[in-house]
């Protein structure tokens, strides 16, 4: 049978939990601020792409590809810096794209352009939801 817990041990446990919660809470604040500042950039990039993307169906897949590549070049000219990730802000992809953080991809699907944003963790964003609620702070 285990010996009963002494009040001093409970006091030490209380302090340990308090310190853990405080340190963890401060770390979570830092993580949140870091993510929000980067996410702001991706949301802006995604919103611009969703807002300006050609929406029509192209006559051939080749024409859609050319339009997509040109669209990506134009966007990368406007947003030459990608403060969120190491590469360009926009990438034209031809197949299933690997998850890359802070990138907006443009692909051709059924002779239309399809825009997908990848958040700070490289996970695909909702896109339609982001189009409904543009970021409050603009980069330009």
């Amino acid at each position, binding site marked *: 049978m285990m010996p009963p817990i002494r009040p001093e041990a*409970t006091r030490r446990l209380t302090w340990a939990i308090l310190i853990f919660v405080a340190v963890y809470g401060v770390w*979570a604040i830092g993580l*949140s601020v870091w993510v*929000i500042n980067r996410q*702001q950039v991706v949301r802006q990039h995604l919103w611009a792409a969703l807002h300006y993307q050609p929406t029509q169906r192209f006559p051939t897949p080749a024409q859609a590809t050319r339009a997509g590549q040109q669209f990506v070049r134009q966007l990368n000219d406007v947003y030459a810096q990608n403060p969120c990730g190491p590469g360009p802000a926009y990438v034209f992809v031809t197949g299933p794209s690997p998850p890359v953080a802070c990138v907006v991809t443009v692909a051709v699907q059924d002779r239309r352009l399809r825009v997908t944003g990848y958040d700070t963790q490289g996970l695909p964003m909702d896109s339609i939801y982001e189009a409904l609620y543009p970021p409050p702070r603009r980069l330009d």
Partner: protein
Amino acid sequence: MLPYPNINPVGFHLGPVPVHWYGLLEIISFVLGTWWLIERGKRPDWHWHREQVLDLEYYLSLGAIIGGRVGYVLWYDLPYYLGHPAKIVAVWDGGMSFHGGFLGVVFACWFYARRHDRHLMAILDFIAPAAPIGLGLGRIANFINDQLFGRVSHLPWAIVFPAGGPQPRQPSEIYEFLLEGVLLFAILVFYSRRPRPVGAVGSLFVLLYGLFRFGVEFTRLPDIQLGFVLGPLDMGQILSIPMILIGPLLLFWAYRGGFVGDPPPPAAKSRAAEAP
């Protein structure tokens, strides 16, 4: 796919003042929770009078509101509030964090315990089963308010939320209502029907809420300003991890007899002294 029930967020008007379901459900949950605690306090193993419960509720309300708001500001959108400090107090614009509210309630209980010669863990045991009443009705309020919905889904019960665009989504508020509200309430009420070691009921709440919230977040759309924050985890899950870690530790400590209960009230003391 299910249609979103067309519920007017305004329940009724009191003269020119619109009464929103959200506020109404908050008031209902407060009244129900208080009534339930008053009834619970009458049990011989508790020693809580009606006036004491009402006094405690005052502390709890302040702790939940202040903690919930501070938690939201710090953990969910600090850059925005640093730029708009006047908005920090604008709780009517929305933005409360359960985890902040929980810490606020714990602090309020500690403060109450110091002022009224009681013990923190015993108070947490007393109030824990009532918390799911407010949590559950709060999630219903979220659903009626067309907010905090889930990720895109093609499940048969997915719902097109008007504020979420044309895609069907997981009704994550309903999942949260069922888990954090109904199931958590049922488990805690059932568990606390028999006398338990001091701290056990409160610790079980910490563990189970953390687990339920962590799981449901996999269906919920992350806050738009954050997205996912650490791999596939969102902020709600990050903040639930300490609950999942600390809950079992406290439960173990409680069963080892590590927490002290409230001192018996004067009447009980005198009865004990008179006993042969």
